């Protein structure tokens, strides 16, 4: 098999926690008031 040079991670649990913290921060930064009444995307968009 061809070898892999993918980066090594010392602490996988810490990587999960860091990813989650980053995603939560991104989610919290999406303003709720701007999407009042806007339906979520549920299928391919037609570009209104």
């Amino acid at each position, binding site marked *: 098999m061809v070898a892999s040079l993918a980066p090594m991670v010392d602490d996988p649990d810490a990587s999960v926690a860091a990813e*989650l913290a980053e995603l939560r921060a991104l989610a919290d930064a999406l303003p709720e008031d701007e999407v009042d009444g806007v339906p979520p995307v549920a299928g391919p968009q037609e570009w209104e």
Partner: protein
Amino acid sequence: MTEVRVEEAIAATERLNPTLNAYLHVDFERARAEAAEVDAIEAAGGAPGPLAGMPVCVKDIVDVGGMPTTAGGADWVRHPDEDATVVARLRAAGAVVVGKGNTNEFACGIDGRNPHKGDCRNPWDPARLSGGSSSGPAVAVATGMAAGAVGSDTSGSIRVPAALCGVVGIRPTRGLVPADGVVPLAWSLDSVGPLAPDVASAALLLDVLAGRPPAPAARPEVAGLRLGVATALMDLADERVADALGAATDGLHDAGAEIVDHDIPDLERATAIHRIVQACEVAAVHAPWFERQRGRYAPGVRARIEAGYGLSAEAYLRAQRHRRLFTRAFAAAMDGLDAVLAPASPVLAPPLDAEEVTVRGERRPVRAALLSCVSPLSQLDCPMAVVPVGVRDGLPVGLQLIGRPGSEALLLRVAAAVESNVGPIRPPAL
């Protein structure tokens, strides 16, 4: 004739795959038998289809009956009896499946590295990244191990490897190409599409994958088109990439297109929306086997999947609402334009062991850099294509074209015009 084309692909695979790792599974005996069947149909005066004799590579998240689907994962495999719809369409059109192409683990990556199956290596320099996750398909078509390929693109997984390997790739309008029989990454973002060494082959493959009759070859005519240059994305590109893209844009202008600046609304927010939606959906996709697989994922892949279980339904739906707003804003910004031009990758293929790249003097993680020009756009559900625009420092550069939903034919016209100026490019002999 088909047998000859298939034998050439097999010979290239035998010679190059031990170095480049484009295929995870091959079935030469079956490919030879299918090639003989196609030739027999032609010899009998029949019509074997528009792809008659085309040897193809199928990304190993797509089911091919009788071949294992591993999704590039560790100890994860299914053995389908049936072809995915896209593979059935390829075969019905006369194509011959050579094997299953390498992929980042569960298509969850952009660099082409795979610790379980081995990294896929760039044919222009095997010490460099191929890009991913459709790494094997891109490398196969760049080297003649296949004349066409099927990949998938959720965040840029067709476009980035196409750019780094110097081939044509199309992320079709979402929903145009069926995804049944394909291991999903994130269902509301996934798009199955073709990779090929030239625009005409990519266009033909797209029509077959979409289940429609082949259209006449795209004419390289751009006179009268109004094309927007995505300045915010161009500003992310390093000087060599920017130079090649500038030359291609000048060529389109010389061919009669009007070139104007285009502003993409709020790239940072677009990237955030994409990450949240993908994290929630990939977590849901993996839920049936996550606990069993948990200790087998590469740590970075596990982190991206497992984090999704910690996000709320409200966060997912809010992101999907913002996605609609971003799409509306992008559509409004495209008013009066026929297509938008952008880099596919802001950098040339990085070294295999690189964790960071330097762009315009700034250090950036490889993953973030490779995603920066593709993932913010992936939520738009519109078609995007990548066409090679030249070679800098011995490595290819790809131009990304973005159009309105259903405008693949127009994008292919622009791509054909670029190709007529540059020509298909080929990696050096290995």
